[in-house]
């Protein structure tokens, strides 16, 4: 741990991209104060100051924080130097979280719609009325459709999400839909198809790193974003592929402006070189790999040579050859970085497979500096007994046969037929996650049955699911919509009942094991008292479920014994107890751990990286054969191509179309942080990146207002004319063009990404394919 310790001044040097931009572009008193803790003391009041350890919730990382509270008011947030995962780092978002509780746009009390949907007419109601209303609506929907799955539940990750699932399970719907098919499900499935798990990369010790489209300097993931910039070993080489010159490109040793959607040609050609020159790890392959001979034959017979790849991806053959040789030379300390969000293309699972297979043949697996399966700290789990209900039908995105044909791209150079991609339904759906694109399509077509209730926790599908007009149409079909949020998101704006959730700085959040190479357990405690009449999901689920128990019709299709079990094990033993009791039980295997969580905000069994579990003799991988699979037996059994074959890229339909790319900045998380004042100061609206030469052709100058159009929709925003993007692509960041006047700082500012994204998908995982939309651009 000591080697990782860093003071805040040193950290701020590390995370310079994010925070430097934050301080340069604004007059942010608080962020400037955060930059220099010594100077800060001059401005502090002499009140009662306390420091409380907790964890950030401004994005998914859950980095360690120390909140400074003076006279009950949150003064500032510091990084936690003892948090082994976040390495004592706190980014611009984490710092700006201090303003979140005090935002004037916060939801303060439950709101019931009184006007038309989207009209913005609400009345405040009490929590008792809100719980009753929600429970009665659930009863109405159950009675009307005699199918509990007629109510859908959408949510995203977070420590309170498990209590949202108490509500889901207490009602009994199978229609849940989460974020992964808008994020990393292709990555999970591509890597898992080879190793049975989705691993991390040890960037702290790797010698040679290939990153493909993962802008880790901006799209922050801890510890990776810190490690590859601050703690990388001397001499580490970073090769980066991206159609844009990003912050990560600026830090790379080599940047290749890869042609969008052709990354797979690059990885296949690297594989070809390594196999042809016999640079692979023969001993590792012999001991651990299934299907090597078929795979080698597949690569050779398809002639995936560097010269072939150059014609596809615009990266010179010699550079591909060099990268392959370097990758093999530094093995096993070589990494093809798995990354996180991967919802780029249709056919994407196969691309991710090639990354995993390249890793396997060089033995860059589960050792220092390689790709490493995640370890975890095992928590004690509760065993709540939710009733078994009879009036429940299977999920719509699983049952709606043929729905995939309705949403996959109609104009592709490689039609689905013949590539082994499923056409009727997604091949592998996670039970909880589902597939957003197919789910919505099934609801729109009432296939195979109507879904008319919608509960949403923390997710904002109006801004996050491609093709907003379809999402709004889906919501129009609903008899009832309830949204649980902190601010009036675009989705909340179209709801019937809005329940205000407490911020992460005001709530107790249960323990969560963050798996990884440095596994830790995190939890949250309030650093300030709730400012308004908000509640946590723990409390909201308790409130609604209690009201549900007073409505007999809601329990007619379960056995009395099951109902009694539910009352005892869920209500009495968990929800009616303080949440601290729940947390203590989670940590009961580790004496003193609960106290440590309260004191330090984090608990770990070790501060050392965890390697080697799967290298032990006789280890069985979670694949069909128990080996690392280069020939995928499950894919074969499903009628899919068992090995990755290159699929030609979708081409523009007409002259003047550009491929639309999505991406992130270091100071925003999806669509959830734009309305926070400090972060809004950094970036007040988004702008579309267009290559200088193309802009000249179109008569567009920097700062001009532009109209961007696709088959899905049209948006207007300013132009950012730059050399930092290929000529065949344009890009703008997510989070603007908001429909909700409740997001006062960003309402109608800039352009929405979801409005113009077409709803294409990868039909193996059900993931949205967010880089498959072509747009035109003109001066507005």
């Amino acid at each position, binding site marked *: 741990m000591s080697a990782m310790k860093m003071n805040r001044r040193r950290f701020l040097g590390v995370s310079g991209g994010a925070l430097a931009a934050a301080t340069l572009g604004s007059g942010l008193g608080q962020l400037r104060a955060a930059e220099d803790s010594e100077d800060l003391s001059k401005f502090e009041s002499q009140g009662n100051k306390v420091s409380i350890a907790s964890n950030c919730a401004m994005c*998914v990382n859950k980095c360690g924080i120390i909140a400074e509270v003076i006279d009950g008011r949150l003064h500032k947030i510091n990084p936690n130097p003892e948090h082994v995962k976040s390495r004592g780092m706190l980014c611009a978002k984490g710092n700006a979280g201090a303003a979140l509780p005090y935002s004037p746009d916060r939801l303060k009390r439950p709101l019931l719609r009184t006007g038309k949907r989207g009209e913005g007419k609400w009345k405040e109601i009490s929590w008792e009325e809100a719980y009753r209303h929600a429970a009665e609506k659930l009863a109405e929907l159950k009675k009307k459709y005699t199918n509990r799955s007629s109510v859908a539940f959408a949510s*995203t*990750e*977070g420590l309170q*999400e498990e209590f949202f699932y108490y509500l889901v399970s207490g009602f009994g719907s*199978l229609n849940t839909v*989460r*974020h*992964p098919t808008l*994020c*990393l*499900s292709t990555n*999970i*499935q591509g890597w*898992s198809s080879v190793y*049975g*798990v*989705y691993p991390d990369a040890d960037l702290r010790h790797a010698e040679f790193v290939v990153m493909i489209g993962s802008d880790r300097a901006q799209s922050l993931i801890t510890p990776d974003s810190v490690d590859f910039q601050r703690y990388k070993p001397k001499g580490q080489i970073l090769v980066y592929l991206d159609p844009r010159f990003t912050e990560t490109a600026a830090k790379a040793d080599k940047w290749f402006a890869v042609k969008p959607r052709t990354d797979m040609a690059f990885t296949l050609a690297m594989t070809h070189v390594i196999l042809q020159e016999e640079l692979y790890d023969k001993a590792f392959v012999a001991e651990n790999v299934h299907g090597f001979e078929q795979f080698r034959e597949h690569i050779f017979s398809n002639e995936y040579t560097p010269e072939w790849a150059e014609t596809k991806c615009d990266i010179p053959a010699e550079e591909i050859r060099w990268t392959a040789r370097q990758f093999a030379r530094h093995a096993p300390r070589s990494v093809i970085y798995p990354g996180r969000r991967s919802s780029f293309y249709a056919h994407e699972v196969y691309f991710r497979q090639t990354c995993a297979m390249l890793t396997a043949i060089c033995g860059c697996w589960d050792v220092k500096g390689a790709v490493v399966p995640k370890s975890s700290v095992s928590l*004690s*789990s509760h*065993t709540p*007994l*939710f*009733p*078994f209900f009879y009036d*429940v039908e299977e999920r719509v995105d699983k049952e709606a046969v043929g729905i995939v044909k309705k949403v996959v791209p109609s104009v592709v150079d490689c039609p689905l037929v013949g590539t082994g991609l499923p056409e009727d339904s997604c091949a*592998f*759906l*996670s*039970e*909880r*996650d589902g597939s957003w694109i197919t789910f919505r399509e099934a609801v729109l077509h009432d296939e195979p049955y109507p879904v008319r209730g919608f509960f949403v926790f923390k997710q904002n599908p109006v801004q996050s699911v491609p093709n907003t007009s379809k999402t709004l149409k889906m919501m129009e079909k609903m008899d009832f919509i309830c949204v649980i949020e902190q601010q009036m998101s675009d989705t909340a704006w179209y709801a019937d009942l809005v329940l205000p959730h407490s911020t992460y700085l005001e709530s107790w959040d249960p323990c969560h094991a963050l798996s990884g190479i440095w596994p830790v357990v995190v939890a949250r405690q309030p650093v300030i008292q709730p400012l308004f009449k908000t509640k946590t999901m723990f409390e909201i689920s308790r409130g609604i479920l209690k009201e549900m128990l007073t409505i007999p019709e809601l329990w007619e299709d379960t056995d009395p014994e*099951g109902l009694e*079990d539910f009352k005892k094990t869920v209500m009495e033993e968990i929800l009616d107890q303080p949440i601290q009791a729940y947390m203590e039980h989670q940590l009961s295997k580790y004496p003193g751990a609960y106290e440590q969580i309260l004191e330090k905000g984090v608990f770990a069994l070790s501060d050392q990286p965890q390697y080697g579990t799967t290298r032990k003799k006789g280890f*069985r991988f*979670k*694949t*069909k054969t*128990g080996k690392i699979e280069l020939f995928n037996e*499950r894919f074969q059994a499903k009628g899919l191509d068992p090995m990755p074959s290159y699929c030609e890229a979708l081409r523009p339909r007409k002259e003047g179309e550009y491929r639309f790319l999505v991406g992130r900045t270091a100071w925003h998380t999806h669509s959830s942080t734009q309305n926070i004042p400090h972060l809004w100061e950094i970036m007040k609206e988004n702008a579309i990146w267009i290559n200088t030469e193309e802009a000249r052709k179109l008569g567009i100058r920097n700062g001009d207002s532009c109209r961007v159009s696709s088959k899905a929709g049209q948006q207007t925003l300013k132009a950012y004319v730059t050399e930092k993007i290929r000529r065949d692509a344009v890009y703008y960041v997510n989070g603007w063009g908001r429909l909700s006047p409740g997001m006062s700082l960003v309402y109608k500012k800039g352009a929405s990404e979801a409005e113009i994204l077409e709803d294409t998908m990868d039909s193996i*995982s059900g993931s949205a394919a967010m880089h498959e939309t072509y747009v035109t651009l003109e001066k507005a």
Partner: protein
Amino acid sequence: MARKKRFWSVVCIVFFVACSFGAALAGSEFSNDGNGRKGKYLYRKNCRTCHDGSSAAEISPNTKTQAQWQRTFNTYERLECAEEWQKMDQGDLTDIFTYLYDHAYDSPQPATCG
């Protein structure tokens, strides 16, 4: 020599019959065509209450591979809690088996995030 040949023929036949019987038993007794959703409830109510690490070894569906679950169910008489199994309805056991088999260590159930 002929006696020796006959002996080995008999051994082969006995072995073949035993294997066939075992395979038939494994294939016929439990298959994953029950109600996995109900099986989850029954597993949590009947198995997990002890097998949460408190009074018996902690188990979860992914503690075993599909083949291991198949073997466990086909030979449950050997388990310490065999008496509890015998009290259960065959249909309930099939439901529990379906849940465990479909979520086994080597099942195709994809991982998730968060």
